[in-house]
């Protein structure tokens, strides 16, 4: 999971989303199709080619007040249409650490 912070050129194949952290509280968010953000991956706009990804990403980074650190991230789509995170880094962002935290939430 090479840090996407080093993302410069956007070249994608397969379904992707644009994700970031919410400025005020750092919550993980995804860019939706209607120019907003959601904390639910299910609401994320899916892009499938480099141009669309670039456009969605540019739209996201224009929202400098609402979101920090936007980047393009892969997803996988199940047979039933469920959108799931597409690599380990994104799985961790969705589900949290891969071990139990010291204090039960």
């Amino acid at each position: 999971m090479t840090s996407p912070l080093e993302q410069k050129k956007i070249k994608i194949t397969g379904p992707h989303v644009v994700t970031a952290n919410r400025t005020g509280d750092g919550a993980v968010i995804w860019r939706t199709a209607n120019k907003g953000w959601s904390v639910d991956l299910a609401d994320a706009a899916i892009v499938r080619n480099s141009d669309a990804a670039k456009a969605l990403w540019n739209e996201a980074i224009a929202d400098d007040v609402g979101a920090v650190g936007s980047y393009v991230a892969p997803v996988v789509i199940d047979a039933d249409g469920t959108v799931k995170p597409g690599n380990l880094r994104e799985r961790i962002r969705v589900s949290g650490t891969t071990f139990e935290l010291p204090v039960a939430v």
Partner: protein
Amino acid sequence: MYAYDELDRTLVRERVDEFRDQVRRRLSGELTEDEFKSLRLMNGVYLQLHAYMLRVAIPYGTLSSQQMRMLAHVARKYDRGYGHFTTRQNIQYHWIKLEQLPDAMADLASVGVHGIQTSGNCIRNITTDQWAGVAPDEVEDPRVWAELFRQYATLHPEFSFLPRKFKIAVMACEHDRAALRIHDIGVRIYRNGAGESGFEVMVGGGLGRTPFLAKTIKPFVSRRDILSYIEAILRVYNQYGRRDNIYKARIKILVHELGIEKFAQEVEDEWLEMKDGPLAIDEAIVNDIRSRFTYPAYEKLVDNPPELKAAAGDARFEAWRRNSVFHHKVPGYAIVTLSLKEIGKTPGDATAAQMDAIADLADRYSFGEIRVGHEQNLVLPSVARRDLPALWRALDAANLATANVNLISDIIACPGLDYCSLANARSIPIAQEISKRFANPETANLIGRLHINISGCINACGHHHVGHIGILGVEKNGEEFYQITIGGKADEGAQLGALIGPAVPYAQAVDVVEDIVEAYLDLRMRPDELFIDTVKRLGVEPFKERVYATRQ
């Protein structure tokens, strides 16, 4: 323990007010993220995978019990009930909200705690030996100088926008417990042949993509001249350090590219212009700083009191005492390490409940003082030996008495991909698995002193280059792989570890560590030949053969 005076406290309060205003301007859009990022970093505020992270400074690793209670309070109120102690004697909170940060910082400031310059391209936390002030082998208490340097470095108008981060460490012994040679500046306090107290100054250490060990730039700098000399180094670096490539921007690269002699000459030329200026240190200034350090009122005690003799029959107590208790310069007292390396848990983490327990125990048994080591363990620096059994019982109840200090399960690990947005791979689960495989205390003691360091990316926050066994997480085709080195050392004999072979996938990493350990047990000359000495004697080859014999 240094007590802030009104000036120190005022500055911290003013910093909180400034940051509150900067957060307001960020949330309103007056500041862009690009403009805000440097400012938040200079307050220790990072963005990570799940949330913001706050890195709080614990200057030269010294904490009062009151401050520890406040760290627990912040963990509870603003985070998820725990904190993580780091390899630079700081503490990190991983689930912070930006909008709550000014309040969290105000709470911390009320006890003189802050996150000033724990990140950013400025001078970071000045670190030292976690045994400073109580070690039998030190020349003087290095913390007085660390505090002087800390004040000098805080909000320095000329050096707040350096080419890159700048880390300074201070020691006052021959034996280096602060890893001086992996710092941008390492300062060793000693007495020269004429009995004068002064400093050996080393420059250009640092890990990461291009690791270097620091070289001595000047073997003796007087007490009067040390600040102006450091200023000269920083000014040369600020002007000539590379700014075109963040991987080539540390002072180690400048020292390497110029060569130490040329670099030393540049510094000397600059220093000669400023050495008699206002940074020349008056001994009165040092005495003034020292006057705000309080030292324990030690009693006259014996080393083997009845309480200790009575507890000798308890095997678990004895195992802990032999492992975690160290000699103190005052008879009848001991330095106690609190292992934060519970088997199967995250190295360096402590819950708020544990922090409160430690604060109470510090009050009761250690004159209210706690230390943080770069090995991610804590220390109670001055415990009367008669109190060891009672202390142990309390630590044991709080899961702070795992008798694995300096052993294989005393692992140093960065947060890695589970938390950090710079990471390529996870580090904590590897550490947890290793500790589980070597959980048996007899096995761990059979192996003896063995430092494992794990970093989740090349930034090397886990200091893997200088681990006896170093593990570096990398990414290959979307999978986690681990490069393994052996033979690194962080002390006065510092050296970088050597790669034993190609990176192995996540599923094999811990097996490789087991193979290395088995090879060591077979190859060592005597049971008391340490792992690091066996590697030195035999080199990497025998280990390499063993590990890669069954792997392709």
